[in-house]
């Protein structure tokens, strides 16, 4: 465990970049930025200038500001969905692993069913029924990622449930809920945190894909997927309208992936060996 030292190493770069991303997107509304929705039709497709570093889009909106707010929207949706999936999935997995029997059977079969659908298709089915927008988006993305949390939690609970310290708490007369959530849960937190970070990364990709198809975040709210989708129409006149959101999205995903890999190596060294990556 040399990873706990505070000295700066290249491996920490993704973590710093991610922290920067989170801070910027959290503070975006209070930062001295222009309104991401403010149009300036006289300056459509204007190139970079001192006021608009990345230029302006097809409605004369500032591209840089829109990128910042798009990152913010992506992260809000991703975190909300991942937290929801994490809470439901973990509760289900812990319950299944701890109580075994019928509960376990039902929970694990439910998971298998959700896993039958490719995530994007499940999301599209929900959009057909409930219409696009964040109110549909977050619960759907959450449902898609419940199974992975349940599997991780279930497997981890199975490996610790008969250990001495769990037996000890139980023999002291602790209630089942107490054993599950204040004894077992803290001890299986490592793999779950890793799973959480992976879920955020994958959700960002899925959300951008849906928004790209026009089925996720709705205009005029800025979203990277949506910006790429609309940028395609003006490909010939203003290729940079396409290049910036592509670069921002890819950079964010690469940072998240690198952070996840690092986090997994630190918190869950066993799984990285099993997966051989």
């Amino acid at each position, binding site marked *: 465990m040399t990873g706990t030292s505070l000295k700066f190493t290249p491996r920490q770069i993704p973590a710093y970049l991610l922290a920067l991303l989170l801070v910027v997107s959290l503070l975006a509304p209070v930062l001295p930025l222009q309104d991401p929705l403010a149009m300036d039709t006289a300056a459509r497709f204007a190139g970079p200038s001192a006021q608009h570093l990345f230029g302006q889009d097809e409605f004369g909106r500032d591209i840089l500001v829109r990128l910042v707010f798009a990152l913010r929207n992506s992260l809000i949706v991703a975190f909300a969905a991942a937290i929801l999936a994490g809470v439901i999935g973990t509760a289900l997995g812990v319950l299944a692993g701890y109580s075994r029997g019928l509960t376990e059977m039902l929970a694990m079969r439910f998971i*298998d*069913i959700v896993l*039958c*659908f*490719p*995530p*994007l*298709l499940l999301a*599209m*089915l929900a*959009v*057909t*029924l*409930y*219409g696009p927008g964040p109110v549909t988006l977050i619960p759907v993305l959450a449902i898609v990622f419940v199974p992975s949390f349940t599997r991780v939690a279930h497997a981890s609970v199975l490996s610790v449930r008969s250990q001495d310290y769990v037996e000890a708490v139980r023999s002291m007369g602790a209630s089942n809920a107490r054993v599950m959530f204040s004894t077992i849960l803290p001890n299986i937190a490592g793999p779950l945190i890793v799973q959480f970070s992976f879920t955020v990364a994958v959700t960002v*990709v899925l959300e*951008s*894909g849906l928004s*790209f*198809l*026009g*089925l996720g975040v709705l205009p005029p709210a800025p979203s990277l*997927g949506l910006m*790429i989708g609309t*940028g*395609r129409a003006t*490909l*010939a006149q203003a*290729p940079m309208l*396409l*290049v910036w959101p*592509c670069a921002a*999205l*890819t950079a964010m*995903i*690469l940072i998240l*992936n*690198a952070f996840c890999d690092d986090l997994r190596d630190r918190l869950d060294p066993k799984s990285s060996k099993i997966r*051989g*990556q």
Partner: protein
Amino acid sequence: MFWFLRRGFASLVMLWVIVTLVFMSIHFVPGDPVELLLSQDGGSADPATVQMIREDLGLNRPIIEQYVEKLKGLASFDLGRSMVDDSSVSAEIARRLPRTLELIGLAALISLVIGIPAGIYAALHTGRRFDRAASYVAGFAQGIPVFVLGTLLILVFSQMLKLTSAGGFVAFSQAPGKHMMLLLMPSLSIGIGLAAIVFRITRASTLEVLPLDYVRTARAKGLGDRRIVLHHILRNALIPVITIFALQIGSLLGGTVLVEYVFNWPGLSGMLVSGVNARDYPTVTGVILVISALLIGLNFLVDVLYGLTDPRVRK
């Protein structure tokens, strides 16, 4: 034999569960599903139209009756009629499915042709320049979303270099060369990300096989490097590659939805996206059922292949 039957039965049960869930999904919606489907323009729907669609979809009949009807339809491959133009959903899917399969096939081929040799070469030369460079490239290729890659390919190859058109479709029977040209870019968009995964798994499993006794034996027998790699390492290292590949089929099918949209490729997903936009319920459920069935079928096929190559699986 019993094992194969049991796996087949499990797949059928899975399919039945999906059909039932998709069938139920329209009834899960709070409020009247038909009014909801029609209300996209904001105003409330005309009662006469609502009544008509309800009869079209059979929603005015008891739920059990609808369900039996649906299963009967599915047994004869009838997925209902589109709410937009009343065309047969099954016929449209049958017309578009081959194009999607073609795309997936070429993408898979590209990924294997790039990923496996690169993975083996990197594993045989760990830590060297190629290995390190390829690992970075793979990390990048795995991270970039398919629709971003596709869009950038269009930007570079058709907008800037003017090498191909930005997308579209020509039937193979009309112009085979043009058909393959148009197929190439979408397949690359999917294949490159997949190649990264194949590369990583091949590299890792080759590294696991390398120090094993049978490789040493082969070397002690005086076999040449080429023969050792092809006959002793590759064969054993490929088993995990097949597994991971099978697990990726789902995301591959999801990826085609985006890529077909990017390149205007008239496969299943164009149908799906316009169906979702028009809230055309029969079209959407039809496509989703077909793709899910494909997924289950492919997984079953992989399981069978597995059972055939490794009898230990069939316990």
